[in-house]
């Protein structure tokens, strides 16, 4: 990668300045130079890819690598990468290792398997809403609903005891923060990793087919491919990927739906509209914009630009999802849109493993929250809400609500 910082170009990732709109530069880039070189916080450069079609191309072309351990992989946080060992992690694997490794676990996340979790998720959501209704007003929706629901669901899936949840929420939020020191982020990462290592060791001593880790251990023993490190990595990935993402989508979507009362009324009147609304909310916010980074392992020509072997690429999902070539009136929030080709869960072989779990959690939350608390409203001007404008995962730090 080029080591020279070009003063004429911006440093990515760009912070959000409006909760409902991408940075203005996204549109300019899409229109004028859809594949452009930009600066990164560590002084290197990389390409940003801004059009929907080009982002999909990058994410399906095997000449782009996901190997996050490789020195050419773009680093988006000042002070270097937080997670410095991705060697056994699905998100960092390329073909031919990735396919079999993903297929070993993706059976846990099929549409049917997720459907079987529905009653338990409903119970978790109801329990949290009971607590809101019996507590003081205003309530912080982030603390009372957004964070505990996905945390409880993923911990249930993995078999993580609930008494350890506060510890998890503390560590994951520090790990992803861009405002604390790199050594503090690393410390949070290491604590969490050590905890999960211990958890896997406990499961190995008495594996049960009642949770995902137990089933993976039993499966590994059948095939004689026992791999403790891969299991720790998997547990870590599922917790990180399934927790804060879903939490932020719950908070942001609640705001968006309350800001669009006509569309909210449509969902309340007809629950078959909730899942399509979830799809639109995913597109509209695209809270994980730059996780779809790669680097080229060969010279690749895309959209008239040659990306040279070794150069980093940021597929900007948020830009792709607001590309007028792919979506009519892309900046409008419209639950009737019926556009499922967004890249909010990424695209290609690495597309989100837990996407159907996320869809179901969001669907249950919105169907339940607005039915059980019909007078729910945000207890602050939208402009005063603490949005996570510069975090790797966009969201809300807190959301005061009353009813």
């Amino acid at each position: 990668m080029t080591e020279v910082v070009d003063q004429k170009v911006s440093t990515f990732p760009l912070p959000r300045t409006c909760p409902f709109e991408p940075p203005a530069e996204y549109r300019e880039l899409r229109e004028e130079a859809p594949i452009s070189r930009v600066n990164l916080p560590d002084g290197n450069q990389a390409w940003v890819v801004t059009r929907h079609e080009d982002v999909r191309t990058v994410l399906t072309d095997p000449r782009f690598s996901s190997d996050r351990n490789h020195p050419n992989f773009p680093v988006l946080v000042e002070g270097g990468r937080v997670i410095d060992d991705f060697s056994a992690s699905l998100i960092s694997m390329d073909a031919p290792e990735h396919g079999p490794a993903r297929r070993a676990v993706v059976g846990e996340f099929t549409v049917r398997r997720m459907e079987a979790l529905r009653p338990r998720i409903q119970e978790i959501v109801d329990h949290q809403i009971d607590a809101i209704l019996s507590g003081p007003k205003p309530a912080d929706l982030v603390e009372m609903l957004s964070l505990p629901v996905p945390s409880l669901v993923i911990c249930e899936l993995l078999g993580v005891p609930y008494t350890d949840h506060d510890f998890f929420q503390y560590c994951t939020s520090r790990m992803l923060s861009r405002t604390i020191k790199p050594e503090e982020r690393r410390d949070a990462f290491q604590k969490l990793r050590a905890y999960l290592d211990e958890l896997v060791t406990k499961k190995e001593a008495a594996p049960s087919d009642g949770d995902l880790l137990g089933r993976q251990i039993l499966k590994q023993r059948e095939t004689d491919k026992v791999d403790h490190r891969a299991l720790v990595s998997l547990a870590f990935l599922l917790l990180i990927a399934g927790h804060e993402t879903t939490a932020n989508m719950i908070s942001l979507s609640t705001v968006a739906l309350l800001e669009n009362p006509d569309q909210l009324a449509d969902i309340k009147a007809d629950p078959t509209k909730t899942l399509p609304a979830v799809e639109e909310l995913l597109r509209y916010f695209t809270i994980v914009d730059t996780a779809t980074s790669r680097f080229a392992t060969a010279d690749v020509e895309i959209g008239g630009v040659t990306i040279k072997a070794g150069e980093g690429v940021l597929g900007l999902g948020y830009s792709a999802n607001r590309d007028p070539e792919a979506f009519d009136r892309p900046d409008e929030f419209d639950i009737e849109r019926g556009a499922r080709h967004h890249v909010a869960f990424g695209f290609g072989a690495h597309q989100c493993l837990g996407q159907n779990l996320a869809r179901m959690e969001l669907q249950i939350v919105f169907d339940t929250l607005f039915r059980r608390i019909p007078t729910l409203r945000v207890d602050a001007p939208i402009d005063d809400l603490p949005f996570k404008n510069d975090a790797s995962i966009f969201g809300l730090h807190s959301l005061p609500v009353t009813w």
Partner: protein
Amino acid sequence: MKIIADTSVCVGAGQCVLTDSTLFDQSEDDGTVIVVNPTPETDELRAAAREAVHICPSQALSLVE
């Protein structure tokens, strides 16, 4: 129309099942696609098959029209 699935590249995202569960299912074992009905008979089902092909993240699905 005939739906062709390449399970060797399928990553089990399940988008096809969400599109139409009368056309597609997933293996309980490794999550890969099972084409339940490879020859969609109605316009509605054919449209669903086209959407499934379009949104499949691993390009495991194709159509012979």
